């Protein structure tokens, strides 16, 4: 046997080396997370992507220029004309305040980065932070090895990359970090029972509320977990310390954020936390009484309390149900309701149904977004049950709920990603542990000539990995006994990937019998040497596949800025920069106070880049206003002109992809204009635009379709491009080819005809001659009826 002090010295040296290695690995993981998101900066340029980030960028610009008080009280009159928008009260300030403070700090350190650069690179920095937070969280659940694996997986998972590339300056970039960090602090409080971590937990929850509307996931998941712990008999005082201060402090902090305000106590999304708060107090009280009373007295107390309690509870419940049932949506907001009942949005709120991110995902999108993790997750779930602790039950609940929600909305695949990474990290780490232990245990046997049974046992105990040293023999027996069925289960999972497993299974059973004989006190799960080596190799190859897929997804699929498009053809790379061309034209050729009308997708970009007032934008808070624009786009020219004129609109912007084959253009979005407009103004009827249940723009289209404003503005002079008017997106020639515009005039079309800008023609002058006949009442009345009566554009 080795000298115990020498072993201790060796052990501490190994621990120190392990610690340094761990820090180094974490640094590398952070660098990896940062650099894998830089593809779009390399391939295109350092530019803000998509639509929503432009709004955040504009708000950050305002913040850095005018300071925080003006930002808090900002009323924006350049959007939603003529209504305006209270920015201070309707935006989640976390992201803009974070980027603003980073910019301010760097500028005070004399590092003069522009606001745009800071905005573009905020997301990669916070994804590195999120990877480190995942390491901390998984370390609390299972240990350092699982933590490092989970962090490495999260750094690269495509689902998270898609919303946090350099340039995607959106709420989720910061919110996912806040989510994971809040969960870590909750688990840490649960494990240690320290009030200090409970305070930090509440502050981190506050940061999450500031950042994203998805904070309701936290404030519903944690109560669910507390309830689960109570129901499964895992109540402890640490649970009380972890949960009760969080509810009180968390509700207060959430009410501080203007967007949430009193919703923190009045909407149904928060009621779960209050209910569990009360239940927790009741349970805590019961445990306390149980502690100080004798069992007989406790029974008496119970019967007394139960009879009174049931009466009181049913009364309170009845009142509550009456209150909640009186409101039509039972107190839930539209978005939350559409999560619980996936068909709700399509029936009642077409705006929510029309956003492409709110559609349910298809099966391939799971493999695209979390790849290998999709089938490592079940192994991780099994590993979490052995042994089941508070922390691992939390992670199991997290993955179960996030899988459900990701099935409702594609956008919520993002919430699934950290859970999947944690589970897969646990699974991979446990697998590696088992294999390396087997190899380590059997390697000396390979070099020894003829090992005796006792010597074998001794060496086996010496060569054990450090984490096993502290366990008592009985614990290890239980652990290994429980591990065996999971090993079998996990082995069965990998059967689908690897071939020739039958031999290995038989070999494993033999090894079990062999290993059982020499070990009397400690039972170790030992797999045959060759099987373990091959299995480790195969796991590494699996990891390699995952890395290759993630890099490909980041480079090809998720790095498109969507404001600049490219296409490869036989004569090289074509770049379509039409959007910025159109916004620049607007900025330079129109008055500052001109109003621009377009479909709501382009609102944020128009205000940010062209700096012109828009009618509707991506915030979509006012359905009637959007329906007005939709009605105008679906009506013939004169009524559309009337509607736009009543809104003081000067320019109309239309996106058209027929010349180059850009399929996200306004004609493809037209069905939503009709539906949303028809939802508010009944004279727009969807069947008027459909031929055989389809929207068509060719010769078989309905006359309503061929006369509507969207058709005319998209296809005006289109026939001049190729003589036949062949629409590349719809794949047909257009129906009406030669027509003139009576109320609009074309002022600008971009290079590839992707954005077309029209100006409203001023109304015709009244003819002076007829005013002389004012004295004649008959003709005056006729003149009045002809010229001065404006038709109501809403009918």
């Amino acid at each position, binding site marked *: 046997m080795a000298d115990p002090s020498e072993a201790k010295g060796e052990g501490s040296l190994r621990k120190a080396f392990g610690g340094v290695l761990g820090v180094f690995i974490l640094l590398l993981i952070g660098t990896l997370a940062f650099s894998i998101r830089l593809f779009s900066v390399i391939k295109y340029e350092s530019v803000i992507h998509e639509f929503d980030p432009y709004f955040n960028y504009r708000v950050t610009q305002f913040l850095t220029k005018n300071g925080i008080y003006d930002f808090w009280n900002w009323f924006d009159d350049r959007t939603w004309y003529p209504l305006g928008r209270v920015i201070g009260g309707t935006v989640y300030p976390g992201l803009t305040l974070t980027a603003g403070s980073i910019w301010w700090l760097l500028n005070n350190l004399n590092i003069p980065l522009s606001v745009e650069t800071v905005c573009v690179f905020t997301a990669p920095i916070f994804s590195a932070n999120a990877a480190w937070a995942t390491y901390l969280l998984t370390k609390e659940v299972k240990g350092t090895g699982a933590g490092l694996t989970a962090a490495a997986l999260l750094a690269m998972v495509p689902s998270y990359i898609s919303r946090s590339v350099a340039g995607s300056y959106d709420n989720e970039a910061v919110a996912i970090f806040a989510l994971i960090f809040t969960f870590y602090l909750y688990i840490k409080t649960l494990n240690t029972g320290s*009030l200090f971590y*409970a305070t930090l937990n509440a*502050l981190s929850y506050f940061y999450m509320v500031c950042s994203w509307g998805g904070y309701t996931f936290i404030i519903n998941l944690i109560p669910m977990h507390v309830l689960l712990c109570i129901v499964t008999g895992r109540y402890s*005082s640490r649970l009380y310390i972890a949960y*009760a*201060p969080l509810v009180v*402090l968390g509700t207060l902090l959430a*009410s501080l954020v203007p967007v949430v305000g*009193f919703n923190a106590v009045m909407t149904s999304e928060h009621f779960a936390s209050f209910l569990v708060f009360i239940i927790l107090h009741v349970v805590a009280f019961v445990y306390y009484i149980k502690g100080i*009373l004798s069992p007989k007295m406790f029974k008496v107390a119970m019967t007394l309390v139960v009879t009174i309690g049931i009466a009181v509870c049913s009364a309170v419940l009845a009142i509550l149900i009456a209150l909640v049932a009186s409101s039509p949506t039972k107190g839930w907001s539209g978005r939350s309701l559409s999560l619980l009942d996936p068909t709700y949005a399509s029936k009642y709120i077409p705006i929510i149904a029309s956003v492409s991110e709110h559609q349910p995902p298809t099966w391939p999108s799971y493999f695209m977004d979390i790849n290998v993790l999709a089938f490592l997750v079940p192994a991780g779930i099994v590993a979490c049950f052995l042994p089941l602790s508070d922390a691992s039950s939390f992670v199991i609940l997290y993955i179960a709920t996030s899988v459900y929600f990701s099935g409702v909305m594609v956008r919520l695949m993002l919430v699934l990603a950290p859970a999947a990474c944690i589970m897969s990290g646990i699974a991979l780490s446990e697998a590696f542990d088992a294999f390396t232990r087997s190899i380590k245990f059997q390697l000396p046997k390979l070099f020894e000539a003829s090992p005796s049974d006792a010597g074998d046992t001794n060496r086996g105990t010496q060569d054990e990995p450090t984490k096993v040293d502290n366990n008592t023999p009985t614990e290890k027996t239980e652990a290994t006994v429980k591990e065996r069925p999971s090993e079998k289960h996990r082995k069965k999972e990998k059967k689908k990937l690897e071939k020739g497993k039958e031999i290995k299974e038989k070999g494993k059973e033999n090894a079990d019998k062999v290993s059982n004989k020499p070990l009397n006190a400690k039972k170790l799960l030992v797999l045959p040497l060759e099987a373990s080596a091959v299995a480790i190799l195969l796991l590494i190859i699996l990891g390699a596949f995952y890395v290759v897929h993630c890099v490909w997804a980041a480079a090809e699929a998720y790095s498109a800025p969507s404001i600049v498009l490219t296409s490869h053809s036989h004569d090289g790379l074509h770049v379509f920069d039409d959007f910025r061309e159109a916004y620049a034209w607007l900025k330079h050729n129109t008055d500052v106070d001109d109003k621009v009308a377009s479909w709501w997708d382009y609102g944020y970009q128009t205000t940010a880049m062209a700096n012109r007032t828009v009618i509707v934008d991506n915030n979509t808070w006012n359905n009637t206003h959007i329906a007005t624009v939709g009605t105008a786009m679906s009506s013939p020219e004169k009524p559309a002109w009337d509607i736009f004129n009543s809104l003081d609109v000067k320019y109309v912007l239309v996106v058209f992809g027929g010349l180059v084959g850009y399929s996200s253009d306004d004609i493809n979005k037209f069905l939503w204009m009709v539906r949303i407009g028809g939802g508010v103004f009944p004279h727009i009827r969807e069947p008027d635009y459909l031929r055989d249940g389809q929207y068509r723009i060719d010769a078989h289209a309905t006359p309503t379709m061929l006369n509507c404003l969207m058709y005319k503005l998209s296809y005006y002079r289109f026939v001049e491009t190729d003589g036949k008017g062949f629409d590349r997106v719809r794949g047909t020639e257009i129906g009406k080819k030669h027509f003139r515009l009576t109320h609009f005039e074309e002022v600008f079309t971009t290079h590839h005809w992707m954005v077309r800008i029209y100006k409203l023609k001023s109304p015709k002058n009244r003819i002076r001659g007829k005013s002389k006949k004012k004295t004649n009442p008959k003709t005056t009345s006729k003149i009045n009826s002809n010229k001065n009566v404006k038709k109501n554009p809403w009918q």
Partner: protein
Amino acid sequence: MAKSSSSDAQALIRSLRSAYAATPTKLKIIDLYVVYAITTAVIQIVYMGIVGSFPFNSFLSGILSCVGTAVLAVCLRIQVNKENKEFKDLSPERAFADFVLCNLVLHLVIMNFLG
């Protein structure tokens, strides 16, 4: 039946009282503080019932400050209680320091929200 239940109730109350009298004085002080905080909260609710709930943020911050200090005091009691096996290596000074810190954060938020 009623007599047995009332005598049961009396026996229950007696045993509760005797068991509670055995708790150390430190914990009884904390319990008193919790009762005081809850009473203040009840008084505020009654006041709101009389006067109406405008301004709502003041009412909310008042109620939640009472409930918050009560909850934190209960957490302190859990951590300081010698019978609690889980916290035997947590010094009462550290527990009190955590309690003070959490109260500081709570009251900072309250002052901000009070309006």
